[in-house]
């Protein structure tokens, strides 16, 4: 089936099998491998992207279901000139990542949270990121990073 969607502001067309997940379409058909696949059944959160502004597990949505929508992946965070997003800066500054496998999903979930709440407390950050699993960091750096980015973005 033919699908057409906008990813990070660029229109794409692809011919996908109905069983292809959005995650596979992004990674394999569009070459946007920033979106990671861990569990492929909704548990780890590594594949989280924004679809029409809402956080979505890209492994639990079919590419054909995304027809006509606007998608933001981790590749869409940095500016056109390569300037990192405040969240990306903060993850780097506060040791929010080690191997980096969970990082795209963490960033997209955190971005969604900061779209909805300007200054979430640590407990809220933990609650919202509870759907994203990291096996490296112990989460402390991640929570620090999201908090720092929230302050940076709120005062900007």
């Amino acid at each position: 089936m033919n699908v057409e969607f906008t990813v990070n502001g660029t229109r794409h067309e692809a011919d996908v099998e109905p069983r292809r997940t959005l995650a596979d379409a992004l990674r394999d058909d569009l070459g946007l491998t920033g979106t990671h696949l861990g569990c492929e059944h909704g548990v780890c959160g590594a594949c989280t992207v924004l679809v029409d502004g809402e956080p979505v597990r890209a492994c639990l949505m079919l590419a054909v279901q995304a027809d006509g929508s606007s998608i933001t992946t981790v590749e869409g965070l940095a500016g056109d000139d390569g300037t990192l997003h405040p969240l990306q800066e903060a993850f780097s500054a506060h040791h929010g990542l080690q191997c980096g496998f969970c990082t795209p999903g963490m960033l997209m979930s955190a971005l969604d949270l900061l779209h909805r709440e300007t200054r979430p407390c640590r407990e809220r950050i933990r609650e919202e990121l509870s759907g994203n699993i990291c096996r490296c960091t112990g989460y402390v750096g991640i929570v620090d990073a999201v908090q720092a980015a929230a302050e940076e973005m709120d005062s900007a």
Partner: protein
Amino acid sequence: MKPAPFDYLRAHSVGEAVRALADADGDGKIIAGGQSLLPVLALRMARPRLLVDINRIPGLSTITPVDGGVRLGALVRHARLAGQTAHPLLAEAARWIGHTAIRSRGTSGGSIAHADPAAELPVVAAALEATIHIAGPGGTRATTATELFTGPLETTLAEDEMITAIDLPSPQRWGFAEFSRRHGDFGLVTVVAAEVAGRWRLALGGVGGVPLRPAEAEHLLNDGAPVEQVAAAAAAAVTPSGDIHASAEYRRAMTEEFTRRALTPDTERAAA
């Protein structure tokens, strides 16, 4: 972990969806939020020949007031439900469903149709004696939550039927208490207490194949018995099975404790 091949139909009306299911002759499945169905497909626990996508059928995403309560269209997402103020019990229950990215896709109709005994909405539907509106190729019908749920992931829905809406009365007073190992995980025990038209109902999730209504505990509650006695009767009514997460005895003890909590106002709970 990839689904087996299937055909895909994007339905634009309820009639089109149920006709397609009927034509698929038992080999078709509805996809709503996909938050339960896609893992099932990826694990190849189901291999339907046809998926009927109902997400673009207009008119199924509304929350409307009906006599004494609300009507949820089948496509109302959990995130919407968590954010609304018309029905506080539903808002509270929806906040316990999975994580943000799952709540933004999962639907009320999908959760009821999937009939997971540990899922929140089926327990609320049982406590509120919800009316489920169903469409099939031959017309529409309505049923109750009690009649709908027959076992774990089993309902009286026919293969060519679709849930279109769920009516839930607004309780005068209510309590919701869930025990899960981590916020967002399925509850090991979920207890919903609701007073509708002057009578209390109790429903217990996660401790049986379907949401359970402990009759004796409800009697005691309506007779004004002490909370401890009601909670003990609720625990006596369940015969949970044990698994890797919790033993049967632990689940029964948690049923008692969380029934007590569901019946204790937050303010008293905080002081205790």
